[in-house]
């Protein structure tokens, strides 16, 4: 039983990392109507920024904050420079621009920091904590805590501030938002900045669990896609729950089903999303009219 709970909690921690990136994907999908395939690579790049800052002697907390700030600014810049000119046109063009960005950012990171594995400093203390007689990893609990805090902050931002309300209005109906004076372009930039920040958070949370290299986020991105798709691509809450389901089943299947092991683990969430989507074509929490590519 203890082992089971440990696996579940670690699964939720993994799922929380996926959820941070999935929230980024959902945020952009709701406002721009496109999936940002480069989201994971942008997050990887920001994680390298954090590593480089820490490596050059900046205290870890400042390095992390610096990387998040960098990601926010870079996300806004990407929207303004690369996305704005093709917005509202053929969605396929947007898909290709984000694929191109995927390749560029990945290569740029390799060019700047090389392709060797880097050790990312631990953010949380190692070891275990006793919770109700079960020893749970402090790192896993920390990651879950951070994600819950993020969800709370996002919820407050979108429901209790004017700017959050304006962002929702701009995402729902850009034309009507303009008529009440909302600068829609600036809201989109903000949304991309915020998404990049969330992605960077996923990056720095997962980096200590793995080694840092240019492929850091490729796997996470797939799981985050799965989580977002499972929850319904336009529902932030759905993205979090979907990502947790993915994280838990991945952990359980990898631990208890011998035939699966670590190499086929990836098939478990993929099978789940294919199954769920075939039964409920707009995900568990999505609205049915979401059809844009």
């Amino acid at each position, binding site marked *: 039983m203890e082992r089971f709970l440990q696996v579940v909690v670690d699964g939720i921690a993994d799922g929380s990392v996926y959820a941070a990136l999935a929230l980024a994907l959902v945020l952009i999908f709701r406002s721009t109507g496109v999936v940002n395939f480069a989201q994971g690579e942008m997050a990887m790049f920001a994680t390298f920024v954090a590593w480089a800052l820490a490596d050059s002697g900046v205290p870890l907390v400042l390095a992390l904050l610096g990387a998040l700030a960098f990601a926010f600014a870079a996300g806004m810049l990407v929207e303004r420079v690369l996305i704005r000119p093709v917005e509202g046109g053929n969605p396929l063009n947007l898909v290709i621009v984000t694929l191109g960005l995927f390749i560029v950012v990945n290569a740029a990171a390799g060019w700047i920091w090389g392709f060797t594995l880097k050790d990312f400093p631990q953010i949380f203390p190692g070891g275990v904590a006793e919770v109700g007689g079960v020893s749970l990893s402090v790192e896993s609990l920390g990651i879950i805590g951070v994600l819950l805090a993020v969800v709370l902050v996002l919820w407050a931002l979108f429901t209790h501030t004017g700017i959050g309300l304006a962002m*929702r209005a701009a995402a729902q109906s850009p034309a009507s938002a303009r*008529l009440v004076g909302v600068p829609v372009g600036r809201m989109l930039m903000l949304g991309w900045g915020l998404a990049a920040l969330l992605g960077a958070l996923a990056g720095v949370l997962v980096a200590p669990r793995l080694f840092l290299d240019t492929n850091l986020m490729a796997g996470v991105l797939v799981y985050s896609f799965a989580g977002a798709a499972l929850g319904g691509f336009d529902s932030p809450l759905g993205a979090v729950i979907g990502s947790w389901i993915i994280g838990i089943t991945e952990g359980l299947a990898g631990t208890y089903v011998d035939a699966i092991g670590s190499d086929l683990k990836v098939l478990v969430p993929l099978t789940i999303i294919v199954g769920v989507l075939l039964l409920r074509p707009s995900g568990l929490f999505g609205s049915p009219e979401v059809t844009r590519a």
Partner: protein
Amino acid sequence: MSLLEIEGLTASYGPVRALHGVDLTVGAGQVVALLGPNGAGKTTTLRAVCGMVRTTGTIRFAGRDLAGTAPEKVARLGIGHVPEGRGTFGSLTVAENLRLGAYGRKDAAAVRSDTDEWYSTFPRLAERRDQQAGSLSGGEQQMLAIARALLGRPSLLLLDEPSLGLAPLVVREVFAVLGRVRAERGTGMVLVEQNAALALELADTAYVLEAGRTVLSGPAAEIRTEESVRRAYLGY
């Protein structure tokens, strides 16, 4: 000085020209009815004022040239627009829709008292303040759209077919409120209506558009009583 002056306005959607020369003037606190058959360019004229279509000619609002001004800036200059189809945010609540109406305003206390005032004007909105706007009836959505536009305290309100699809009783309620707004706040209005008789009751002046041109203008009372004009241009 007139509130809104439009001269020689043309507008195009891509290669298709929708307006060929519209002239229109709204004095401060005046209500102007914009009439004409479907496709005459009434909606396009409103959209042109808000910078939503490409135009030539002049549009001057309170002495200021609006050419090339983005819709969000036009809104902040004091032009409220209740668009075709009402433009409410269906997945946001009534209260959130109203908050968005006051988006540019910094006077939080006054916004609150304005909001309360609108809730007492339209009690049905107050009852449904936490419901999604998409779940409201057509009439309630129209009230919401008008209240939202007026929460920005515009000096000019553009209304696109406010009576469309509403029950006669609701139409009367909406127009009564519009009349009161004009009387109490001196808000100028441009009213696009299919229901010409209704619009002419409220309006001071009327303009008739045909095929993208102003073909007739004059005091609303005269147009209303001039039977030949009604027959020729308004079909009633």
